[in-house]
């Protein structure tokens, strides 16, 4: 008996009234683990029973301890009829099995019922006594730590990164068993919840075994997903990165502050200064939009793509899903292999890493995004209950990814993730990651550290890399030698592939930072921005949205149709991303996530990423619209107005995101976009000479002579480019962990989940119509989020990831979980000011005129004050002025124009807007509220319920994580047969999500924690039947429970100082 599990039921409170006659409840509790059940006494006639039970002891195998949850059922005793269940609590024992995690679970848990939701709370105490077991053939993997966090957890250091682990388990879905016809919905839901809990326990145990086999002790970047395949089964699968982690001694841990606010802060001595240092060196940018693709399709079609590997989905012909990949395997590999580097990874089947954040020096080069999709038919699986078929499917996809990476000259894939989308019997498997060259040291005996502040290590020369570079014939010893203290901040941008034998045609230039290596003109990645990366200005969220109609079909026909559509969608999403990136004057995407969702009659595609301007990469070219029939005069005119709007937008964005690479400033003076930099975006003819096409009101204006796809694409591209609403002043957004350019976070944060479902009432919509709707939907959701969170201004929405689904015909569901983090505008301003120091002589004067402008505007709603002495302020914007009718927007525009002449930071506007909005008139929220949102510090400490913070990020600003308590992985089902009474679908889902949050918080608090990091809502499946007054929803959430301590304010100041210093150096360089 390797383990003894002990549980004690202390008390209950707020129980529901179960006996109508007395308005009271006779409650007792059943405690079940495995097949053993204990019961407490009945505590009669109370809504707040005090059971104070004895310790219930279960003697069990540690294998069971890992698989099974502790199941606590609260019931109402009934003498004459069957006892009524009040609700249940499932407690995952896993955190107690690791010596470094929690030691006891103790606290109030919400009692949950799948039909009624939360019904009161129960106080439980759980402990585990583990006996040492030296059995070599054991099936358990107790003690292996799991982390959802996709970087090395903050209070650990990685002694070794072993690599990819994956596992998949299949079971029959209880909802589809015959017995489901006769049992109650409650019983069915509970069976499902229990099964999934068991399966994820089993999955975790199996992955743990693999980790132990590899010699590791932890899984980082653990990503577990469910596939509700329906008839063919229920799949739980997980991937992760096996590591050997050493716990840092608290003393040293505090030195490696880790997360704070700021990447730059943690490696203050090297990277931040680079940010500025290098920009002056860059000049004479030469870039053209080009078309490097390693792709399945004809390169012509995908000629806009870059660093992007598309695998055409394969169609299943036989039951065994052996798809034929149309993709060309053969991106010519470099003739000279980086042998040393390879060898470390070559032994592994899949050199994949689910991590997205690495210490400096780990990433040597980044090749680009690799992705693969495959369409499968679920009803063709031979043995649905066995995992073999699915294993084979994923194996196939992973092989494809691996070969794509090879084609890009890379031996590893980082930021790797897998996902599925299922509609009826069609299932699309997707995998994506970033092809990269890694420093093999870390895979062998070296070690790497959390925040990337371990200087000793990163200074050591990565042997493998040296060899490889030599092989390339590029003499690079000066930066590879590492004689000078810091690793190059631009290294990861350098191409890993052979310049003369490229996998796709790319426009290469010498790195703008080191001037020695070649870099591509655009870089797409799925990882977070490396800490050492030098970035100009700020980043922003970039989304590409696409909707494609599809004929309703079944089986193979359907699968074929989907497969045929997929590459076009990928291509169009990619083009959109590219155009939007250029529109914002940026040259790199991080955290790219492309989701394609299938419905019965449409496909949805949503790509999200954070765009930045990497200083090492050349400045992006502009966008040029070219018509194909230049004969028509009015058409030409139209084209030129469009072109003007685009150019104006680019200029505006440059200001907004504070992107001022030296060479760009020169160019802006003349024509915003020099010809040589323009990329072409062909647009075919159309009779109407106005934006009619944008509204998509006309039918039958298709030109038979032009390729239809190109036509609509261009129209849509322009449309989506120009309809993207700018962010309100005071807001920034990104989908990565941190926002480049913002360092001084306050402790104020607000995690939220928002879900929307739209019904398309017009059945026969065109692609353009659908696209418009889908784009509006996303834009409106964003707008709502900004409005909701306006009290947190200035703030940044981080980890803003949308999940789209087509739950039913004509329904579109969008879900987003993100965190709003406010930052200190004063210090940010100071930092920004310092950044621009040396160029703003007339700063005082400017500031004055700005204020003047703001005041006059707010007082009479008609801005009259014109800043004098500024070069052509409002001229360029006269056209766009009429479009804005709120004075605030006007004000912002004005601010933009004012700043055009001088070199003023975009922060200025923001601060202005802030000061205005924080005044009473504009922000109706009472002071108390905004204060409370900003920080919970002011809360009285005597609050009865522990405040548990939640964030999708791996850190909490201005705090230090001192302990990881274990993984939180919960699955809930909620069903109702009284939808109207619960406030309709919105009321139902609102309370369910609130309940899920509450249960997560309660579990974390019971483990002794005060926060969840790397929180994510993996699944939110919502089904409704309003006619029957019914609805059902499934939610799966995960995260890491942690204990954090607040940093003293003194400790938090350094970031500012560093950035100040940084900027000074930078400014010096500029002048």
């Amino acid at each position, binding site marked *: 008996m390797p383990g003894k599990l002990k549980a004690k039921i202390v008390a209950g*409170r707020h129980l529901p009234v179960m006996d109508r006659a007395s308005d009271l409840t006779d409650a007792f509790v059943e405690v079940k683990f495995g097949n053993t059940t204990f019961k407490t006494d009945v505590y009669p006639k109370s809504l707040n029973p005090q059971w104070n039970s004895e310790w219930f002891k279960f003697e069990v195998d540690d294998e069971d301890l890992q698989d099974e949850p502790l199941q606590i059922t609260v019931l109402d005793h009934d003498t004459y009829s069957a006892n009524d269940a009040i609700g249940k609590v499932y407690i995952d024992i896993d955190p107690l099995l690791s010596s470094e995690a929690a030691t006891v679970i103790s606290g109030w848990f*919400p009692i949950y019922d799948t039909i009624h939701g*939360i019904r009161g*709370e129960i106080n439980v105490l759980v402990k585990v006594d583990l006996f040492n077991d030296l059995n070599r053939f054991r099936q358990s993997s107790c003690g292996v730590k799991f982390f959802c966090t996709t970087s090395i957890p903050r209070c650990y250091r990685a002694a070794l990164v072993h690599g990819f682990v994956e596992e998949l388990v299949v079971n029959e879905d209880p909802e589809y068993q015959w017995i489901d016809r006769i049992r109650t919905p409650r019983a069915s839901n509970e069976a499902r919840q229990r099964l999934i809990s068991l399966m994820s326990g089993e999955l975790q145990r199996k992955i743990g075994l693999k980790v132990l086999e590899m010699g590791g002790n932890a899984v980082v970047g653990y990503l577990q997903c469910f596939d509700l395949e329906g008839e063919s089964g229920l799949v739980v699968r997980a991937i992760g990165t096996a590591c050997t982690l050493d716990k840092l001694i608290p003393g040293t841990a505090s030195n490696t502050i880790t997360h704070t606010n700021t990447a730059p802060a943690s490696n203050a001595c090297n990277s931040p200064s680079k940010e500025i240092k290098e920009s002056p060196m860059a000049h004479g940018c030469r870039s053209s939009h080009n078309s490097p693709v390693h792709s399945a399709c004809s390169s012509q079609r995908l000629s806009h793509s870059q660093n992007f590997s598309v695998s055409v989905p394969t169609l299943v012909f036989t039951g065994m899903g052996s798809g034929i990949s149309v993709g060309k395997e053969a991106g010519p590999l470099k003739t000279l292999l980086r042998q040393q580097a390879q060898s470390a990874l070559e032994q592994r089947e899949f050199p994949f890493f689910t991590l997205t954040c690495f210490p400096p020096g780990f990433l040597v080069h980044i090749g680009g995004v690799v992705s693969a999709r495959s369409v499968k038919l679920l009803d063709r699986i031979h043995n649905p209950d066995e995992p073999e078929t699915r294993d084979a499917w994923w194996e196939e996809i992973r092989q494809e990814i691996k070969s794509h990476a090879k084609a890009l000259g890379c031996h590893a894939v980082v930021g790797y993730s897998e996902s599925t989308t299922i509609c009826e019997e069609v299932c699309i498997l997707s995998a994506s990651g970033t092809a990269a060259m890694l420093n093999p040291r870390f895979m062998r005996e070296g070690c790497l550290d959390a925040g990337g502040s371990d200087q000793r290590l990163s200074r050591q020369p990565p042997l493998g890399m040296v060899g490889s570079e030599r092989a390339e014939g590029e003499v690079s010893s000066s930066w590879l030698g590492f004689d000078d203290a810091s690793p190059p901040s631009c290294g990861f941008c350098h191409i890993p592939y052979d310049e003369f034998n490229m996998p796709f045609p790319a426009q290469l230039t010498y790195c703008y930072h080191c001037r020695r290596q070649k870099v591509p003109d655009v870089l797409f990645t799925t990882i977070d921005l490396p800490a050492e990366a030098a970035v100009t200005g700020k980043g922003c969220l970039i989304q590409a949205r696409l909707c494609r109609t599809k004929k309703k079909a079944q089986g193979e026909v359907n699968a074929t149709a989907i497969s045929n559509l997929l590459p076009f969608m990928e291509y169009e999403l990619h083009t959109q991303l590219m155009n939007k990136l250029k529109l914002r004057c940026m040259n790199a995407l991080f955290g790219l996530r492309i989701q394609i969702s299938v419905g019965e009659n449409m496909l949805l595609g949503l790509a999200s990423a954070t765009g930045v301007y990497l200083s090492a990469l050349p400045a992006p070219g502009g966008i040029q619209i070219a018509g194909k029939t230049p004969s028509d005069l009015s058409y030409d005119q139209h084209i030129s107005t469009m072109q003007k709007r685009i150019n104006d937008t680019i200029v505006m964005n440059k200001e907004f995101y504070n992107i001022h690479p030296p060479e760009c400033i020169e160019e802006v003076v003349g024509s915003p976009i020099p010809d040589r930099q323009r990329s072409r975006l062909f647009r075919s003819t159309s009779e*109407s000479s*106005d*934006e*009619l096409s*944008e*509204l998509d*009101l006309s039918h039958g204006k298709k030109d038979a002579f032009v390729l239809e796809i190109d036509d609509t694409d261009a129209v849509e591209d322009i449309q989506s480019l120009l309809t993207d*609403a700018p962010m309100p002043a005071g*807001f920034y957004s990104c989908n990565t962990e941190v926002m480049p350019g913002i360092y001084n976070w306050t402790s104020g944060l607000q*995690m*939220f*989940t*928002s*879900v*929307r*479902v*739209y019904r398309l009432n*017009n059945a026969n*919509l065109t692609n353009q*119509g659908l696209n*418009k*709707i889908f784009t*509006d939907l996303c834009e409106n959701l964003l*707008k*709502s*989020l900004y*409005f*909701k*969170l*306006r009290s947190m201004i200035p703030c940044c929405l981080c980890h803003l990831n949308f999940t789209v689904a087509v739950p039913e015909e004509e*329904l579109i*569901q969008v879900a987003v979980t993100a965190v709003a983090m406010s930052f200190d505008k004063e210090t940010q301003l100071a930092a920004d000011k310092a950044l621009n120091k040396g160029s703003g002589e007339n700063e005082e004067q400017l500031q004055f005129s700005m204020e003047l402008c703001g005041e006059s505007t707010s007082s009479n709603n008609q801005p009259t004050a014109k800043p004098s002495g500024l070069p052509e302020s409002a001229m360029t914007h006269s056209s766009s002025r009429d479009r804005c*009718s*709120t004075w*605030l927007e006007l004000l912002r525009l004005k601010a933009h124009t004012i700043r055009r002449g001088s070199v003023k930071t975009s922060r200025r506007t923001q601060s202005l807007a802030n000061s205005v*909005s924080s005044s009473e*008139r504009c922000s109706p*929220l*009472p002071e*108390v*509220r905004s204060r409370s*949102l900003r920080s919970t510090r002011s*809360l009285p400490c005597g*609050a*009865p*319920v522990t405040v548990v*913070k939640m964030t999708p990020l791996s850190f909490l600003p201005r705090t230090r994580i001192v302990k990881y308590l274990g993984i939180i992985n919960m699955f809930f089902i909620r069903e109702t047969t009284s939808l109207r009474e619960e*406030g309709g*679908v*919105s*009321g139902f889902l*609102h309370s369910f*999500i609130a309940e899920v*949050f*509450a249960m997560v*918080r309660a579990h974390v608090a019971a483990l002794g924690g005060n926060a969840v990091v790397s929180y994510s809502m993996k699944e939110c499946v919502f089904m409704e039947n309003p006619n029957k007054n019914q609805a059902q929803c499934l939610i799966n959430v995960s995260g890491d429970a942690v204990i954090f301590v607040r940093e003293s304010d003194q400790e938090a100041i350094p970031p500012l100082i560093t950035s100040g210093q940084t900027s000074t150096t930078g400014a010096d360089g500029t002048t």
Partner: protein
Amino acid sequence: MQIRYAVFTPILCRTQRFNCAINNTRLQMLFTQTVPGAIYLLATVSPRLDRYITLVKAYKMSMELDVFVGNTTIMDMEVYQLWLDGLTVSDAVKVRMDEGALLECEANPEVLTSDTMDQFRTFQMCERLLHSPTKLGSQLLYQIPAQNQIILIERYYEFDSVFAREVLGKKLSKGTKKDLDDISCKTGITLKSCRRQFDNFKRVFKVVEELKGPLVENIQRHFLLSDTLARDYAAIVFFANSRFETGKRKLQYLSFQDFAFCAGQLISYWTIGAMDSMMEDMDVDLEKEFLNELKDLKVLVNDKDMMDQHKILVCAALRGKIKVYKLMEVNFKFIEPCRYDRWTVAEITLFLTHYTNAAHCLGTFRHQMIWDRYMGVIKSCILQMYHE
């Protein structure tokens, strides 16, 4: 393009302008989304937005579900007030628009509607907890910062004194609840708000009715209200319990605050709790013993001799008669003539002081203690009630 229907509405939102052609007729078109889920095309009559505008519906998509849940529950206290005031979502949206909510964060009516609906739903879901405010602090469902909890509770239990005046002295029964729509009409307070306020009165009354100890403290302990609000509730409970006839026409001019003050005085001095906080009884009822003793004071009125003597001593016209049980009438009967004679507050004060002191000088008058206890309250009540 399919035109589903056209509606007329004053335009109230920011729009994007497009040039657009329908049936070869060029119209200045405005493109906007005024109502959630619908995309409208607006044909302007004039390019300025101050005229009515034709709304033409082009596509339709409806928002089926829209939720926003924060780990910390976001509550906009301005919207909370609108909700408390019993406004519908659309009315609340209008009010917010009038207050300039659209100027914030580049909002549009759709965003505002969505936000308002979401907030209203949040409040509705929290309402259950507000019924027993102590639960709000220990529940796990919503993570609400402590300051916000306090505001939520306080505002929820706040009431309109106009409404309270109407209900004062009435039995907090179902019958009264049925009359709420009359009160709603009379006071201009929405029925929904009236119901909430009435239910609050009833709830507080029910909880503290049977409780021992000081009334105000009981209310504070069970409903976590501020001191002032708890005192107001104490007054309501007091009146609801003793059912003074506050509805009389002559008393119409008195506000809730006047009555609340009197109730406060009565609770402080005339109840058992006032005399002995350790007593088993409670604040709600007047002390029986004291009331009986008051009968003895009637000598002042009944005994002609004594009254005359007292009259002389006071040196003022004693047109006020003293009755024990019907306190309000006493006060009133005293006040009305004074009002009639346009006495000033100072004069009244002077008179009452003398009136009180004079009794002490009466040799035959034995009930000095009772008299002081009686007159102390009467004096302050009269002063409070003496106004236009």
